[in-house]
């Protein structure tokens, strides 16, 4: 069987499993509720504080849809933990309950890890796309301004940010065989990365150094956005590569 077909089968199986997994469904529900509240608050806050927000983004030459920007900041604050919660036990969970063993005797390990990673990215991206489209509709309802194109641009940037944390979660699920340890280390790293972003000399290592650049999409500063996307995708590739390296050598 060719590699793409193998990855496809693992990916499809992971998506089906996720749709039945109570834990994943609860995590998604909590995230959706949180962002739903955030959506409502973003519109309220932007209407209340639009004048002061205007002063913050005064240097922008294009008008900023503040409600969308605020929603972006709300979603990006919740996203790291959400991504980690979806990915922290992808490998360690399979090792601890041994379900990965029957897979590993039939499919190349590279296909298993790629399929699992793609399933998490797809699940996460679809949940966020649904939320962003709902946000666009809600904001249109409230403000009579349709911001579909800006919404989609922000979603793409958010997806890159999510890929960083999903690949980090995948790496955490590879370095230990106990899912709860993967989660603890992952949470500690998320907190650590926030601190790292506040030190100028090492800030480039943290995704929090780039997340603010999301509003440059709305302001039309593509160079800044491209630089951030390349950095975050570079780190994601590094984490995925390390996961792949560990998983190939691991005893199951």
């Amino acid at each position, binding site marked *: *069987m060719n590699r793409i*077909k*193998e990855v496809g*089968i693992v990916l499809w*199986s992971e998506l089906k*499993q996720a749709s*039945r997994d109570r834990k994943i469904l609860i995590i998604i529900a909590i995230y959706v509720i949180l962002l739903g509240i955030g959506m409502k608050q973003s519109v309220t806050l932007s209407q209340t504080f639009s004048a002061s927000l205007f002063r913050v983004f005064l240097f922008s030459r294009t008008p900023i849809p503040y409600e969308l920007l605020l929603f972006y900041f709300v979603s990006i604050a919740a996203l790291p933990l959400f991504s980690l919660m979806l990915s922290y036990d992808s490998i360690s969970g399979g090792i601890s*309950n*041994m*379900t*990965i*063993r*029957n*897979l*590993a*005797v*039939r*499919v*190349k*390990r*590279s296909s298993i890890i790629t399929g699992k990673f793609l399933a998490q990215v797809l699940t996460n991206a679809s949940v966020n796309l649904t939320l962003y489209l709902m946000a666009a509709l809600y904001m249109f309802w409230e403000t009579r301004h349709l911001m579909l194109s800006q919404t989609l641009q922000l979603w793409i940037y958010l997806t890159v940010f999510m890929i960083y944390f999903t690949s980090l979660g995948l790496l955490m699920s590879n370095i230990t065989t106990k899912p709860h340890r993967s989660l603890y280390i992952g949470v500690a790293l998320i907190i650590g990365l926030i601190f790292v972003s506040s030190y100028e000399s090492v800030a480039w290592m943290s995704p929090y150094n780039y997340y603010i650049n999301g509003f440059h999409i709305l302001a039309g500063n593509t160079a800044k956005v491209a630089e951030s996307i390349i950095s975050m995708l570079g780190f994601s590739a590094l984490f995925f590569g390390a996961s792949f390296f560990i998983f*190939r*050598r*691991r*005893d*199951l």
Partner: protein
Amino acid sequence: MKYAIETKNLAKKFGFRIVVDSVNLKVPEGSVTALVGENGAGKTTTLSMISGLVRPTLGQMIILGKDISETDVIREDVGVALQKSSFDPHRKALDTLMFYASLKGIKKEDARVECTELLKKVDMEEHAETRIKEMSHGMLKMMEFANALIGDPRVLILDEPASGLDPEYYHKLKELIKGFGKNKTVLLASHNLDFVSEVCDHVAVMHKGKIMIQEKEKKLAHGKALEKVFVDLMKKF
């Protein structure tokens, strides 16, 4: 003699502990070979390395002429039944087998026919819609066995296939393995020496990670009960 499975100086260390030590195993094509030995002798680790679940520290493994020493090399034409069931507990029996059939590249409709047939073969056709989590230990063992048979592989690796089976499934398993004749090569690990003497034609005795003896079952047992022979051997080692 042609060998379906061959290991050369196969070794595994966990930390400082040598679990498998320079194992040179030769499994003749069409034979049913048993790895026997006391607990911790290294049987499961040896089978896990051959199955691709555990990475050897040293050595080479060849199955049907193909070097499979790396974990990321697919063991084509090989079916594996693990000691402990490792199926998704929420899936139903038929769906489980069909999923693993899809991983072998078998089309959905063909997989349905083959997996239904396999469930019938292991006396589990009435459990096709039973979820894995609702199954008894014996049923899970038979599911593992049926899973190993998907795609009609030429080589079977079975880790403790008979442990914990009730008499009915035990009898069924023996009949199925005997029925393979020379069409399949089977390498199994077992504690059950009655089972081994009934179904196996070759025996390899493992002790402290090494293969001490590898003989035809008849030659090793020499008309005596295999259990008695094994106990005597252990005293010598």
